[in-house]
């Protein structure tokens, strides 16, 4: 659609029921969605690069895992706690899904409830990561490749979660202010996709650092 977003007036959101404005909205929404998905693809590449580095170093370069430093082999990370923290994050993914579903079915009350739990669980995950960082005995960020790859990758992931929590709070505020209607809610879709993406990255990291 050869109409730029900026050039179309910012009228109050309303449903046009298939009319002219709706056609423009749908085309614009399709473009924004494609752009957002491509952004997520590039984010996957970012994580994949460091995941490659970790696998390459652990597989091809390091003879032992965990590495041996000063004659002692470093301990493995705390799998039990990470399993617990993972469920917290996956749970927030499910609540986010239901938040969006409720919005689509015009249940604002349920939407609010599920958004609240999503944000709460997201913050809980971040708290869990802080606990993990305080208790990990793997030589710190700059000690050796274990710390380098673990703290860099999970730190990047945690940063994405923190940004995601901010994103969700902003979306919730926008929803309260009536920016979204029952049929026009692209921001919520984008936020949900982002949140699921962050979730799935954690599946991979959980496997790579705790289960391999």
């Amino acid at each position, binding site marked *: 659609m050869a109409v730029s977003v900026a050039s179309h007036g910012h009228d109050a959101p309303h449903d046009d029921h298939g009319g002219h404005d709706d056609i423009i909205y749908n085309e614009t929404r399709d473009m924004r969605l494609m752009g957002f998905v491509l952004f997520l693809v590039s984010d996957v590449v970012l994580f994949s690069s460091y995941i490659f580095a970790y696998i390459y170093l652990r597989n091809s370069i390091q003879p032992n895992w965990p590495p041996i430093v000063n004659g002692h082999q470093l301990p493995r990370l705390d*799998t*039990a706690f990470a399993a*617990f923290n993972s469920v917290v994050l996956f749970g927030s*993914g499910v609540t986010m*899904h239901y938040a969006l*579903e409720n919005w689509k079915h015009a249940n604002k009350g349920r939407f609010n409830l599920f958004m609240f739990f999503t944000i709460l669980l997201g913050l809980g995950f971040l708290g869990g990561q802080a606990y993990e960082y305080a208790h990990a005995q793997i030589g710190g960020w700059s000690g050796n490749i274990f710390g380098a790859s673990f703290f860099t990758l999970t730190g990047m992931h945690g940063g994405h979660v923190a940004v995601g929590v901010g994103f969700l709070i902003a979306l919730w505020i926008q929803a309260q202010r009536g920016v979204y209607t029952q049929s026009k809610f692209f921001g919520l879709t984008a936020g949900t*996709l982002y949140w*699921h993406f962050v979730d799935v990255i954690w599946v991979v990291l959980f496997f790579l650092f705790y289960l391999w």
Partner: protein
Amino acid sequence: MDLATIEKVVAFIGALIVFSFALVGLKGEWPKSGLDDNVTKVLLGLMAFGCVLVVLACFGVLPHGGGA
């Protein structure tokens, strides 16, 4: 019951709950065909797989030889 066991039990129960809800959500999304719906299906599926990994961790199946 030490802390690690409590964590594993809670994680196991939580994983079962989240797994079921993820599958219910996936079933609901399945007939939809938009780009965002398809991306959601993939991500919900991977999230369910994550729950499977958590269960394996709780029973010490992974990592090989049992973790901390």
